[in-house]
């Protein structure tokens, strides 16, 4: 009997040797005269276990990992094709504690099968949402999104239904759906995983959005750092076109939808939605002043939905299961789940889809296993390079848009980067300013000039610890100017990491330690 093995083709899994392990498995099977079928699936997101191989034994998937090529002969000898015991055996995949505890709605299909097989997508619940949407009026689709309480996962948390309704009601016979797949935030990789591991869910989400707002053309703006996602999306778009999911007659409905893949060129600011539109139009990625909103005058001046990958990929689940089912998860005004990304100095980094309301401590310790170095976790940056640094006293804060905003922090795209106690927070503040100086689009002064002055100021402060001047007051002033005077969140939020570092770790700047009570 042919044994079936799943070896992730995900770029991160391959980056730690999944291809070499796959070759070793094929070679050893040949040597033993054992017939095996190797499926290159997406990753389950348990990256400390990658390359993680699953074996389908008697209807159950048994996981082994991390599997290096040299482990392979031993695994065959241990009878892994029938789930044999071995030190690398992790038991049934579904029972791995860090996976079993998750609430996988949007990432439910991740790692199940070959990501470009539309057949596999269908048999795992795909296209149910689209079929429902095809039978619904646009208003009804948007009502469902409203009732789910879905908010944009790209960072700003803007209600998706409101954005869609604006585009629906905009008078124009040409409208666009643009997927923001620029995923520039450091510490984030959920968009990449989803596009590589379940591309049809993004395509389905964009199709449903097109039906809801009356758009027949979509663009996926994909960052150039993701060549593997590019190939998989290309294959999925080709597959969807072949099967009549995309094109003139979507699933025989008489509706049309064309989808284009567009490659970015390494500019962080092009993740900002209006800079992204400029970039598709072939220009420098300069941020546009709003109004006009892209929903009214977006791509090529036409009404345009711009949504993040995860926002759009959440849509099929919501349509399939109903808005209330989605809204049943979460807390406060943050409904549903967020795929959190655990990164940096953690023992068990990876993707954790959990309802809003989960605490940082749970994510860092119960899922993340504490620091990789074994030293105390001293600072955690949440929400990408423009996110605040949080000290241990904040670890019980629930992950919720409003709770984070209330303490001057942001959930953003759900990236969580942990640092142990060897980190120099003044250095991290300098890095934040330098990143802004490097990536500023240059349109407005507080960001373009402010960030450069910020680097100079921090260089001076770093060279002179303990501080004897009032440079910290100057730094606060500068941050205030950037906060209040910048056109977009690039300049407007760079002060978050800088000020939170200064507030929570003054001793790293050579300033007197702060009093014990909590400040933001």
């Amino acid at each position, binding site marked *: 009997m042919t044994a079936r093995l799943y070896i992730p083709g995900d770029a*991160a899994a391959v980056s730690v040797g999944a291809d070499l392990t796959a070759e070793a498995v094929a070679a050893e099977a040949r040597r033993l005269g054992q017939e095996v079928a190797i499926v290159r699936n997406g990753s389950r997101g348990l990256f*400390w276990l990658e390359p993680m191989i699953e074996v389908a034994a008697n209807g159950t998937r048994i996981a082994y990992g991390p599997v290096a090529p040299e482990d392979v002969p031993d695994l065959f000898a241990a009878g892994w094709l029938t789930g044999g015991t071995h030190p690398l055996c992790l038991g049934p995949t579904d029972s791995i504690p860090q996976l079993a505890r998750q609430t996988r709605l949007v990432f439910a299909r991740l790692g199940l099968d070959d990501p470009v097989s539309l057949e596999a997508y269908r048999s795992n619940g795909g296209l149910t949402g689209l079929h429902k949407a095809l039978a619904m009026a646009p208003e009804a689709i948007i009502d469902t999104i409203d009732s789910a309480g879905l908010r944009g996962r790209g960072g700003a948390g803007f209600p998706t239904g409101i954005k869609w309704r604006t585009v629906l009601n905009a008078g124009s016979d040409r409208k666009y759906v643009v997927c923001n797949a620029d995923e520039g935030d450091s510490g984030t990789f959920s968009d990449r995983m989803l596009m590589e591991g379940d591309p049809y869910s993004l395509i389905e989400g964009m199709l449903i959005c097109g039906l809801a707002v009356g758009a027949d053309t979509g663009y996926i703006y994909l960052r150039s*750092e993701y060549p593997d996602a590019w190939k998989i999306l290309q294959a999925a778009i*080709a597959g969807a076109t072949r099967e009549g999911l995309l094109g003139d007659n979507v699933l025989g409905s008489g509706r049309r939808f064309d989808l284009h893949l567009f490659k*970015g060129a*390494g500019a962080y600011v092009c993740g900002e939605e209006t800079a992204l539109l400029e970039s*598709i139009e072939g220009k420098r990625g300069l941020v546009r002043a709003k109004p006009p909103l892209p929903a009214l005058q977006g791509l*090529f001046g036409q009404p345009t939905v711009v949504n993040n990958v995860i926002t759009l990929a959440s849509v099929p689940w919501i349509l399939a299961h109903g808005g209330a089912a989605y809204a049943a998860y979460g807390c406060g005004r943050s409904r549903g789940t967020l795929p959190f990304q655990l990164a*940096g100095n953690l023992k068990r980094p990876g993707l954790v889809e959990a309802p809003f309301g989960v605490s940082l401590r749970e994510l860092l310790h119960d899922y993340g296993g504490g620091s990789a170095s074994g030293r105390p976790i001293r600072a955690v940056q949440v929400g990408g390079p423009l996110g605040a640094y949080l000290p241990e006293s904040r670890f019980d804060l629930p992950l919720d848009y409003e709770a984070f905003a209330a303490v001057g922090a942001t959930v953003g795209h759900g990236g969580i980067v942990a640092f142990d106690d060897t980190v120099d927070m003044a250095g991290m503040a300098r*890095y934040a300013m330098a990143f802004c100086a490097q990536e500023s689009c240059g349109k407005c002064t507080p960001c373009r000039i402010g960030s450069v002055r910020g680097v100079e100021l921090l260089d001076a402060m770093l060279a002179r610890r303990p501080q004897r001047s009032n440079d910290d007051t100057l730094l606060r002033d500068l941050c205030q100017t950037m906060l209040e005077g910048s056109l977009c969140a690039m300049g407007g939020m760079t002060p978050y990491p800088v000020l939170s570092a200064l507030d929570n770790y003054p001793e790293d700047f050579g300033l007197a330690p702060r009093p014990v009570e909590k400040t933001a």
Partner: protein
Amino acid sequence: MPEQTHPGADPSGLLPALHRLQEEHGYIPDHAIAQLAKIHNLSQADIIGVIGFYHDFRRTPPGRSQLLICRAESCQAMGADALAGHASQRLGIAFGETTRDGAYTLEAAYCLGNCACSPAMMVNGKLLGRVSAERLDTLLDEIDQS
């Protein structure tokens, strides 16, 4: 495969065209700029402005091997600065430079989306995770010998 450009919206083809040129030559050669200006109905200054805005595009040939080391937060938390220092020292160049013999270009990336396997880097377009100084040395030895 649907084409990447929007029909009827002329300049939108510029980024795809620049990507194609760079794939073919490794950089955007000067002679292509005048041509692009003509095709896209833009001035040469416009084209140069666009090339200059995006970090991906370069106007000079890169080294035969391109090393991109991630220097963003997650990788910093896992020792990327030391890795970057090691690479720089071994190659004898700073970030943004190419070795004299044209063998290597060393560049910084700000997130490769491999943050759960930090520190990360890309070698000639191939993503690597959990990169130690030793693993980098082995890799560079292999490239040196090939």
